[in-house]
């Protein structure tokens, strides 16, 4: 399976994502510069990495979400392309309208950087099929704007449709309903503030992130 990582100015987890994808697929992912206009043929899974694209100017992820390659990824995701965004990547996906809601300044105004325990809400999704439902995993978080917000109706729909895939056990940022990660209606676009790509090696302190990549890659 050919995978790809999109690199924006001031992405800083692009390499972490590439290392994770290579470790799990056995094949180097393509690194794609944001000015490109089209994904190369054959790419089946795209990661939007963490970082501080464009210095978080205007709003986190706002400028990156308007870059040429994102328009192509968005169009292809509507036809089923698998996409995951972590941290700044999640912010980019919401800003691009590929996932509902928005990531706001953390409620306590603090930059939070620590391992975070999450509950896998259910294993009936392309991104969580390798986990046991209701199991707990530990992924690192490192963000200032991770406070997930959406209007009541949107949150109600996410909950009803089982699209909240991960929840914080000790909410670090004020996210509504303790939401840490959500998926789109098609089930093929996923975003979360924590970093599964930084939990794939014992030296990271844990390997709970591996199954997230294995889950989605197995479906492709």
């Amino acid at each position: 399976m050919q995978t790809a990582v999109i690199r924006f100015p001031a992405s800083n987890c692009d390499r972490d994502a590439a290392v994770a994808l290579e470790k799990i697929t056995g094949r180097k992912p393509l690194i794609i510069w944001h000015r490109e206009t089209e994904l190369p043929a054959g790419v089946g899974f795209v990661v939007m990495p963490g970082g501080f694209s464009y210095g978080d100017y205007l709003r986190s992820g706002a400028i990156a979400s308007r870059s040429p390659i994102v328009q192509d990824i968005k169009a292809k995701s509507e036809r089923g392309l698998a996409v995951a965004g972590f941290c700044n990547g999640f912010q980019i996906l919401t800003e691009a309208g590929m996932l509902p809601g928005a990531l706001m300044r953390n409620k306590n105004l603090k930059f939070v950087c620590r391992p975070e325990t999450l509950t896998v809400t259910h294993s009936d999704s392309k991104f969580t099929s390798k986990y046991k439902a209701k199991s707990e995993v530990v992924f690192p978080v490192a963000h200032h704007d991770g406070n997930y917000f959406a209007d009541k109706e949107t949150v109600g729909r996410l909950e009803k449709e089982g699209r909240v895939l991960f929840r914080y056990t000790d909410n670090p940022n004020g996210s509504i309903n303790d939401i840490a990660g959500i998926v789109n209606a098609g089930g093929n676009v996923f975003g979360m503030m924590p970093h599964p790509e930084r939990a794939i090696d014992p030296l990271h302190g844990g390997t709970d992130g591996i199954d997230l990549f294995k889950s989605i890659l197995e479906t492709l």
Partner: protein
Amino acid sequence: MKALVYVGLKPGVLDPQGRTIARSLNDLGFGEVESALQGKVIELNLSGDDMKAAEARVVEMCEKLLANTVIENYRIEMRAE
């Protein structure tokens, strides 16, 4: 001409920065401050002289980039200067 675009959080959206500003002003003795909302102002210098057409374009800019309408409102002030 100029367009001043004011972008702020919608009512009902928690604004921790505004709340902190209000609290800090209270601490400095400005007890009359009941609340504060923090937003931003974007000043655009525009070519052309048709203000009405320009304003319609600025609305489009707000919808496409300057505001995230999931959480933010915007207000536009056009100036001839």
